């Protein structure tokens, strides 16, 4: 088992003929993901990825012809909101948006619309999902992960890879690794993922990688205390980040004195959740559970 994506995932790629879209589609196919269709307006009828994937002008056409149950979005930021809405409107239940730089007000409308449609969004500005040995949706490097009992959820990209790689090096595998994205407004939050891991029979414990900005980590700490039976190990990036400055991710900013690493670490420690001092401690903490 895994969460959200597995060997039954039938993936649509929006923006498949772009540089990123085509490259990562190739990587996903090589990993074993079923990429059933691509969409690029104006390029319907072509084939992408060395002829392996049919391309459609619209998501509705791709859905009618190929029956995808998930979509991944690589289109440029100014078109990303439209692409996500189009996928949800065509009835796709899971949309993963890799694109960085989507305006916040666009995401507010997109999230409200997807809530109405009952569709789930992961991202934007995220590396996607990887269920080792089953499917990879997004841009995570597939070979760093192995199947196993740990669920990994993070707001970051390379920091997640770093942690997954360190777990794998210790022989600790993963059910699903998921990057929820570094923007202020995101579709899927820590709590959503924690609940899915709690309900996934093969996930035995969870690693949560947070960072400064917002209060998603604080809510996650309360959720862990009240609702979770499985152990969770955490790490929070940004202890040295100055207030008022955006640390790369649009959502990684300490504003009005809130969103600091110290507050988040205190929230986890208050409910008995271990917080690693640095990423390399995580495999040790996980091995102890």
């Amino acid at each position, binding site marked *: 088992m895994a969460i959200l994506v597995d060997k039954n995932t039938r993936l649509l790629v929006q923006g498949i003929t772009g540089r990123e879209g085509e490259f990562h589609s190739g990587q996903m196919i090589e990993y074993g993901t079923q990429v059933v269709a691509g969409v690029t307006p104006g390029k319907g009828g072509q084939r992408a990825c060395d002829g392996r994937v049919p391309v459609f002008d619209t998501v509705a056409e791709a859905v009618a012809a190929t029956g995808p149950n998930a979509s991944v979005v690589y289109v440029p930021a100014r078109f990303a909101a439209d692409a996500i809405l189009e996928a949800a409107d065509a009835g796709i239940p899971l949309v993963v948006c890799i694109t960085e730089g989507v305006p*916040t007000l666009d995401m507010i*409308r997109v999230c409200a619309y997807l809530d109405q449609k009952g569709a789930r969004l992961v991202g934007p500005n995220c590396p996607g999902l990887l269920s080792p040995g089953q499917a990879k949706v997004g841009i995570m*490097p597939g070979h760093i992960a192995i199947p196993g009992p740990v669920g990994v959820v993070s707001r970051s990209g390379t920091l997640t890879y770093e942690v997954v790689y360190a777990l794998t090096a210790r022989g600790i595998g993963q059910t699903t690794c998921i990057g929820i994205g*570094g923007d202020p*407004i995101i579709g899927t939050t820590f709590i959503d993922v924690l609940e899915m891991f709690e309900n996934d029979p093969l996930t035995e414990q969870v690693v949560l990688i947070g960072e400064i900005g917002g209060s998603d980590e604080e809510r996650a700490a309360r959720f862990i205390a009240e609702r979770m039976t499985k152990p969770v190990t955490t790490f929070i990036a940004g202890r040295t980040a100055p207030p008022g400055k955006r640390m790369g991710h*649009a959502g990684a900013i300490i504003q009005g004195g809130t969103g600091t690493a110290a507050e988040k670490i205190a929230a986890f420690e208050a409910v008995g959740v271990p917080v690693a001092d640095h990423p390399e401690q995580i495999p040790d903490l996980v091995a102890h559970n």
Partner: protein
Amino acid sequence: MKLHEYQSKRLFAAHGVPIPRGDVAATPEEARRIAEELGGTVVVKSQVLVGGRGKAGGIRLARTPDEAEVVAGEILGMEIKGLPVRKVLLDEAADIQQEIYLGIVVDRANRRPVMMASSEGGVEIEEVARTDPEAIKKVLIDPFVGLRGYQTLALAKGIGLAAEHRRAFDRIARGLYESFLACDASLAEINPLVVTAAGDLLAVDGKMVLDDNGLFRHPDLAQMRDVDEETATEREAREAGLSYVQLDGEIGCMVNGAGLAMATMDIIKHFGGGPANFLDIGGGAKAERVAAALRLILADPNVEAVLFNIFGGITRCDEVARGIVAAFEEVRPTVPLVARLVGTNEAEGRAILDDSGYRLITVTTLAEAAQKAVAAAKGEAAARGELGA
């Protein structure tokens, strides 16, 4: 991106929010002319992108055009929290009976804009949130139905605004929300919104922060960026497409990925050093990008060592290593360099760095990287021995 008070207020006014009569001056002579046109007492307000202008002496009254010229001259020569005052706003002075706060921000947890009002105008909202959180009234705005009359009424009643001002308050609240949407703002704030002796509501001070990700659809607003909002280095980084924040430590950091970059800063501190910067070189790590990043780091005179922390995922470590060596050829760093490459093709990457002929310490773990960088920066004998080898 932050906007100045005068820019914010003009944008609010374009959406029906009443603001005082006034104009902007860059010289005392201009200030005098504006004061003459306005007549009567004026407020001379420094236009800098920091709070606490009043306390710093950057907001003063002037009763005559002569006085306005003198006061403007004094304020224009000031520095407020390190920022030079290049412009002053001269506004007609208002006869203030009551001050309130009205603002909109993005509520991340609820994924909605939230409008906040407080009867404690003129005080920073964060300060009110700390001292008297009950005084702040909030309404969440549904993006599909917008801000409604019953919501602005709830705010007006919540802060105890007299019934005769509620219609004007509603118009101003809606105008503020329209400006927030029209500009892709992440914050739009009127503080204070005043009730004058004549019974009018007036936005005496205004502030907007724009979402950088929305600027592509507002080229007119993008041009309003104040050069003093960021350091010269930060500007250079932004123009080179790098994500960079200057800090005050001695170890320059070059990392791929924002989360990993923060974790790298933190571990330097954990082992007793100080990060000189946050820097995310993004994916790919091509030579010219690495070179640009390296130039930025080395331009900081505090930097005594540089730590490279690269995770090779889709990007291979050997490609990144070639990028780093090519950048060295161009930039010729003289400080000690510590490199940690991990992930895809890490051994090949390390070999390329080891064979490059530059004084480079290659390590495998992040902890080791931080410890070596801290030692190198402190010029400890052990590190120097290794550097010479």
